[in-house]
């Protein structure tokens, strides 16, 4: 084609490109329009290759014509790039009724520990900060560790209070975590500071408030000059940390053969704050844990000289503490394996909108 025709063609293409570009809505569309005209095989781009077909005299003019057409369309492309870009920025920033920034997020299903474990870890953390080690002991225990070494000889009335699961092989299921007191004394000697979380078993009829399988945490501190004042301070600290509240506590006499003196530790009722209610039988106090100063016979059984060392011990019902903390009303839930009762399912499923419980 001659130069005049070329100019006409280019002018037509310019108009077409202008219309095409005006119709673009996205940068992708824009890119394809750009290559339709300006690409190597595009309608303008392909004409660039025809320069060599013109007589040498005309080549300069043709080149100029093509370049300026190319440039003009390029400028159009730039204009539209900016148009679409700012439209996209505006759209991104625009309010959309379909987007509610206040909706809950999508949650990861990380799993859950048992309520008793959750409380156990809190107790462990408190004592680790006090320099106590955490020990463990067997659930199938000997009469010696569970009773005799704890100053409970055969036929002692205290055995009645702890109905025991006996095994045909002569062993028993430990009725308390206290046997690990002796095991820990044998292992470490004095001074000693340890706690022992673990499962215990009592031959009891199960109902809403009694289980034959439950968790306790045993605590033992042996040193020179350990006093009742120390025991009270440590117990107070433990309960305040685990229950995240300041509590009044009180000690009163309690009889357990492996301590002398022995105490029952009560906390001011959580429900009525000590004023008296049905939960605390109008006393204002809840019985929480037995404790006391380690009996010399028990120290001796653990190989520690009671003339040199003394200490305190306690047994905290972890299952009861977990029930208090998580509002579990029926103890049978604890060993049911039923996740509906053991897991805060809203943690995973989504927030609760209405809960009639």
């Amino acid at each position, binding site marked *: 084609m001659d130069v005049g025709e070329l100019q006409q063609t280019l002018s037509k293409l310019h108009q077409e490109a202008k219309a095409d570009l005006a119709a673009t809505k996205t940068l992708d569309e824009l890119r394809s329009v750009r290559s339709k005209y300006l690409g190597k095989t595009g309608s303008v781009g392909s004409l660039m290759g025809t320069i060599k077909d013109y007589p040498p005299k005309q080549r300069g003019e043709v080149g100029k014509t093509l370049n300026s057409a190319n440039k003009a369309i390029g400028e159009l492309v730039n204009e539209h790039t900016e148009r679409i870009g700012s439209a996209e920025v505006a759209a991104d920033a625009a309010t959309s009724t379909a987007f509610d920034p206040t909706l809950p997020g999508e949650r990861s*299903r*990380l*799993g*859950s*520990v*048992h309520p008793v*474990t959750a409380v156990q870890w809190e107790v462990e953390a408190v004592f680790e900060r006090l*320099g106590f*080690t*955490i020990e*463990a002991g*067997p*659930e*199938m225990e*000997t009469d010696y560790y569970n009773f005799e070494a704890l100053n409970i000889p055969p*036929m002692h*009335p*205290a055995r*009645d*209070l702890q109905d025991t*699961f*006996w*095994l*045909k*092989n002569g*062993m028993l*299921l430990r009725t308390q975590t206290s046997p690990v007191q002796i095991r820990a004394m044998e292992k470490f000697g004095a001074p000693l*500071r340890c706690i022992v979380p673990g*499962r215990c078993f009592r*031959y009891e009829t199960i109902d809403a408030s009694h289980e034959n*399988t439950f*968790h306790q945490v045993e605590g033992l*501190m042996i*040193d020179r*000059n*350990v*006093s*009742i*004042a*120390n025991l*009270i*301070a*440590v117990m107070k*600290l433990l309960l305040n940390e685990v229950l995240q509240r300041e509590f009044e506590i009180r000690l*009163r*006499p*309690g009889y357990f053969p492996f301590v002398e*003196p*022995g105490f*029952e530790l009560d906390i001011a009722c959580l429900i009525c704050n000590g004023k008296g209610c049905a939960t605390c*039988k109008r006393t204002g106090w809840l019985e929480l844990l037995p404790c006391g*100063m380690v009996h*010399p016979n028990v120290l001796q059984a653990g190989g520690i000289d009671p003339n040199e060392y003394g200490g305190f011990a306690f047994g905290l019902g972890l299952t009861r503490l977990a029930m208090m903390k998580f509002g579990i009303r029926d103890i049978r839930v*604890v*060993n*049911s*394996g*039923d*996740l509906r009762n*053991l897991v805060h399912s809203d943690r995973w499923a989504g927030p609760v909108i209405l809960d009639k419980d």
Partner: protein
Amino acid sequence: MLISVNWLRDYVEIPDSLDVRALAERLTITTAEVEGVEHIKTGASGLIAARVVSIDPVEGKPSLKKVELDLGGKSARVVSAAPVLRVDELVVFAPPGASTLESGKIESTTVADLPSEGMILPGSAIGIPASDKDAIFCPPSMKPGESIDAKMLDDWVIEIDNKSITHRPDLWGHYGIAREVAAILGKPLKPYPVVDLEKLSDKKQSEVPITIDDANRCPRYSALKMTGVRAQAAPLWMQTRLGHVGLRPIDCLVDLTNYIMADLGQPMHAFDGSKIECIEVGLASDGNTFTTLDGIERKLSSEALMIQSNRKSVALAGIMGGLESEVAGETQTILLESANFEASGIRKTCAALGLRTDASARFEKSLDPNNTVLSIQRFVHLASAEFPELQMASRLSDAYPNTLADITVEVDPKLVTRTMGHPVNEKQMTDILTAIGFGVESKGGKLSVKVPSYRATKDISIPADILEEIARNVGYDNIVPRLPEVQVRHFTANPQHITERNALQAFCMGLGYSEVHLYIWYDEEWLKRLGFKPVAGPVLINPSAAGQAQLRCSLMPGLLQASDRNRFHADAFKLCEVGTVFREGPDSRNQSRHLGLISAKRGKGGDDDLFAGLKGDIETWAWQTLGGDLQYEHASKNAAAPWTHEHKTANIVAKGTTIGTVSVCPLALRRNIDEHLSAWSIAWAEVDLDLLHDFKVESKSLRRVPEHPEVEMDFSLLIDAGSPYATVNENLARFDDPLLRRVTYVGAYEGKSVPTGKRSLTYRVLFGSPERTLGEEDVSAVKASFEKHIGSCGYELRR
């Protein structure tokens, strides 16, 4: 145990201004737990004694009687429902104008068309438990028309938790509680009111011969024969008190022994004196039978201690008297037994017979042998006021072959102060101990403390016991809490604790498992559904339910049961339990801590994905806990348990040790449990955590970023389906080229583009050099040589 405050007031002055609830609280914190306080208010006024003159039936009303009463100069006609009335007996009567809270104001009225001028009062109106007699009988010392002092009817009752006084024989009677109250209030304890038997007895009289065969089981036996007793009602004050502490008044003699039991804690037994000439205390013969006074014939073992008279059994020592020698209506002579029996023997016998009584409950606490004579003296003191003709028919007989040793405890006041963490001076200590009956002498800076006999039977023997007496009376609430001062000591971490905490943190606080706690015994019914017969393990003598005797040797049956429970409420769940499993043998080492995992999902054919996912979870945990990778070994095909898949089962191997198994539940098992489970997939794993204790966590160096870029390429190998992963790895690892930096496993594929009998394993390979950047020729050369190596291993490349 119930304690009457009126009763306590016999022994200690309790100010009227003192709130009984406050007193109860003080008792709780210094002595024994009070479970409740009850105010017994009868609102009684105008009550009198009345003599029954005649009793006539009411026509057409068999439950009612027409009763005529002598009110002392006056008479009254009433219609009464009281079932047991006899002419000439004295009853408590509420004439018109009298009132009680229970019945309101009494008025003349008409019952069954008959006039009724008052009411024969039931026991419940004055706080006496309802009895079959349902009338209150007065002793013969009262006169018809005599008014009844309403003051003795109102009372406060304190309930003490029996469990909190198992170690305190002295607290099983009002006098012992009064001693504590006196110390709490700082008031004197009045002496125990008794008579001097020496003054009453006739020196010419003989003793009741007592022979004790077993002085260990019966340290002391005291007895006294008396005449001049008869069947009659106990005094009203005594009946009221007994009623208030939950003992039903029966008859003066029985009530007297019950009263002294509740007073001093010493059980006594009154035999019909005409049937007993002598006392022999000895063991029963095995297989003999004995009929106790409740009419039950009991089979005895040779451990049962018996009271015999002329070798004829008359009582089960310390537990219950015999039917034959029971005091009856016509009894005029009694032989009063007041003995001391050894506690554990009583406990054993009670356990063997399945029989516990108020008496045995007290003997089980190791009673003070000094109370045997004291209570006889008390009995005579109380009885002589009721039976004007009472006379000794024997001298006091007292066999005391096993004397209670005196106990003196040496106490260092400095040690007391130090152990309490609270300053108490010697005078305070002495005052406290003296107030509760201890003798204290100061000797060279130490206190020499003599223990009273009522605390010396087993309760108190060491300085710590004395410390408790001091500390509880100082008041634990007066001790200021103070954190201990200690020497820092390092304790080696307990590997069990660390391993378990790590496992729970990994699985339940990141990998999506929910922790459960399940019972440690198998449930036979459930095992049947699983089709599982466990190997022998420890077996409970007293299981909580039938079929739940054997302890578990695997966590899986329980976890499968929990899965079967949870499938109703979820479409997918992951469970985790860390718990103990057991092996047979009387050794506490025959148990291990296991980790059990379940990953379950509704939908058929999900086995392989769950299996791979579960293994991935285990590997993630292994990285966190052990700091490295695990291996799997294809487990042998003889499936160990029904939940193990014949083929899809691997042993989990950590550092050369097999630590557990991972598998999927075969369809056969799922069907056995429930047909619905055939549409589920369940993968499981069980790991012996104890095997990990000795593993040290490796801290591997992190990979350095290469100085020269490396080239990454994936190779997919077609291998025989049966050719194990480990073999392929070994073969690939044999490729030795300086430019090969690293080979990692990417994944496996079996599907459309893979020919049958084959599967595809994809590996990612890194080529590079620490010295230089590889050129294209280097890469293609090493790639070609790696492909050649693959070919030489007999694997095809999948394009």
